[in-house]
């Protein structure tokens, strides 16, 4: 197992190197240069030349690529063209917001999706099954921006239970230790802040978690139905085990593997940021930052962001692979 993990981690290096070069090439070949975007209507020959020189854009391609790879090897992602800030700082300022939102959304999706899926499978063909699968189908096909606005109108405007946008109220001041506001509020032992932060987290998490919830529910239902028809389930029942024990200990654990794959994939996607959800809820995550960086041809920032997301995606999937083996001892990696 250790050898497997180490080998997978080693594979990370060539994968990331490949991704870096491809991203660099893509950005380099796309028309429109960063200096132009930054100066907008105000660009004239002199300011453009000065800014291009400042950004190193006047250098030949191979020199730029060389600088880039050299910097990367020393762990230096450079400064953003758009914001003058170090890319590492930019990422560390925004990534906690994305992590917090992803965690909350996935918690909602996993708890909700597993419950719906299990209930539907057990009560197959019943009222509950139809109802929850209708909800799941609606969840998958719902446009995110629409869901977000409906939730805001319902729970923040018509019934003003929750705040409309942002991560915390203007009246709250929290020392930023981790950038995860829930954790920061707990560290500060500030219950008012914690309540405020959780209330801000609720709607974005539901919005972002709805599609994964629906996917997880459907996947759980279908794989559980398959397992429930197996001989060993009948044997377990015949032994006189209670239906709940049969379901939880024998069926769900085995039915969980395909669901786990889905969860890992969704988790990976969400960690890459969610542009629409972040935009509507004014959530300062990595998705919008990366989107703006692409528009601005801020290629150092794009580079850094893509590398981060690729790394996370690979790591999340690695964790999922390891979990497979733990869940089902028949799976072994050699």
């Amino acid at each position: 197992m250790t050898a497997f993990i180490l080998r997978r981690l080693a594979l990370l290096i060539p994968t990331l190197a490949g991704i870096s070069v491809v991203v660099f090439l893509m950005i380099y070949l796309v028309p429109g240069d960063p200096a132009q975007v930054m100066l907008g209507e105000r660009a004239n020959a002199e300011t453009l030349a000065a800014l291009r020189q400042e950004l190193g854009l006047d250098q030949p391609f191979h020199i730029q690529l060389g600088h880039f790879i050299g910097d990367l090897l020393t762990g230096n992602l450079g400064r953003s063209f758009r914001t003058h800030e170090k890319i590492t700082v930019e990422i560390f300022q925004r990534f906690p917001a994305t992590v917090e939102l992803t965690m909350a959304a996935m918690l909602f999706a996993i708890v909700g999706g597993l419950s719906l899926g299990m209930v539907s499978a057990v009560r197959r063909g019943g009222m509950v099954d139809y109802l929850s699968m209708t909800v799941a189908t609606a969840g998958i096909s719902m446009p995110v921006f629409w869901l977000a606005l409906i939730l805001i109108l319902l729970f923040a405007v018509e019934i003003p239970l929750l705040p409309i946008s942002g991560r915390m109220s203007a009246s709250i001041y929290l020392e930023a230790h981790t950038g995860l506001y829930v954790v920061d509020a707990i560290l500060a032992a500030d219950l008012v802040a914690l309540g405020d932060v959780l209330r801000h987290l609720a709607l974005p998490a539901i919005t972002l978690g709805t599609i994964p919830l629906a996917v997880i529910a459907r996947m759980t239902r279908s794989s559980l139905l398959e397992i429930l028809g197996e001989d060993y389930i009948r044997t377990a029942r015949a032994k006189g085990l209670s239906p709940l024990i049969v379901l939880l200990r024998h069926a769900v654990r085995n039915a969980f593997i395909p669901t786990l794959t889905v969860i890992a994939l969704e988790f990976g996607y969400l960690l890459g940021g969610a542009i629409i959800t972040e935009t509507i809820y004014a959530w300062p995550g990595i998705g919008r930052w990366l989107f703006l960086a692409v528009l601005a041809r801020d290629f150092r920032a794009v580079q850094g962001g893509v590398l981060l997301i690729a790394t996370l995606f690979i790591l999340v999937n690695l964790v999922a692979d390891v979990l497979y083996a733990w869940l089902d001892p028949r799976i072994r990696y050699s």
Partner: protein
Amino acid sequence: MGCLRRIMAAALLALGLLACGGGTNSGAGPKDTVLVFARGSDSVGLDPALETDGESMKVCDNLYENLVTYAAGTTEVIPQLARSWDVGQDGRHWTFHLRTDVTFHDGTPFDAEAVLFSLGRQFFPDHPFHKPAAGTYSYWKDMGMDAVVADMSAVDDSTFVIELAEANAPFLSNLGMNFCAILSPTAVRRHGADYFKNPVGTGPFRFVEWRKDERIVLARNEQYWDRPADLDRLIFKYVQDPSVRYLELRSGAVHGMDNLSPEFIDAIRQDADLKLQTQPGMNVGYLAMNMERPPYDDVRVRRAVNHAVNKRSLVDNFYAGLAVPAINPIPPMMWSYHDGISGYEHDPRRARELLAEADLADGFDTELWVMTAPRPYMPQPGKIAQAIQADLAQVGIRARIVTLDWATYLDKVFDGQHGMCVLGWTGDNGDPDNFLYVLLDKTAAVKPAQNVAFYKSDVFHDLLVAARRSTDVAQRTRLYRRAQEIVHADAPWVPLVHATQTAAFRGDVKGFELHPTGSKWFRSVAFGP
């Protein structure tokens, strides 16, 4: 079942936490004198000499001050950190007499050395801070200050002298712009490349906190040399989506916002809890015809296009009435605006006649270029282009719309690859030179060109140069009026609209005034009936 009970308990605890924040939805109430202002983008940086975006300026407006500033509601230049100034006979030597009762937010005294540092770092190539670690002094270059200024020096603590290469009238207005703000030399030296997120000025508010893409918090400067601000705290909150911004304002969670979407204007007008503010904007949106490409080298064709476009319908349909149809390149609120020019009437028949005179009775095929990004002077560029396309079709001009993203668009348009293109401009310092010279002078038609009509008129150029050299406003007015007549006759553009600036506030916010330059000053803002 113990497990179930534990889950229930956790759920109840979570609900309790959610509920305990209930009722504080608005976060900051009037009693705390915290004002939250929502805007559509975060600032890029808070070093005013490095930035070019309006959202950075909005915050800098409240942190920094300049030698001179603009009077409320106009672009008239008035003293700020300079008590007064003298100009030598030749119009080249400017002596500024500085205030002696001002300190920066970090305690550094304000004096002529600080002025020399703030302006000198942009001007002197051998200044230790001439090359910023990131970014460049774009505005200094863009406003041509390297050519305008010959030297500068601190004579004593309270006297600062700038020597110009030749007399230049718009120069004084430039000193009021954000890039000429005076900053604490101590802070710049201490923070170096990270100064942009540790700003220190002399303004009525000092910097407290910046959570990227979330909020910037300022607090009242208690040591302010003039009457201090009323607000304890001023928060700029980033809410990108315009409908969410509006809902936040309606709910009272934020107290003010700008850049309103046209669809909310009526709702805000009718809401007794909100107030709408408007101000004729110092901007222009225009349709430029590339005179380097036929048939736009023929003035009859350019006039025909002018007659074909229905500007009134653009204003009514895409600006919710919050714009005025443009006649001249400069907006009507600017001094020297020529109100004797009546503009080209919307007259498709006259347009057809002019085309026939130019041997184009059957019309012609052309490209109409448009950007995807909404701009202050053009909130819905795509739809506006379609409306213009339909107007042109009425007179037989078959325009194919070419849509490009902002980056590529500017790149290609400045390179003259278009037939017709829409673009615009927001003025910086209230001087007509800042519109006419930048956008239409022949020297601006060198690629990458800001003069995207590639209009090259020697007569026009001579008038603008003469107006730059004169400091006599009456004489400058005459010259600029003449220049507007020439542009009108040559018709390199279809001037489309001047968009109105908008902002909305809660009913209990008083003292805010929109300024023609787009500056957002909060010193006099307070809560009250």
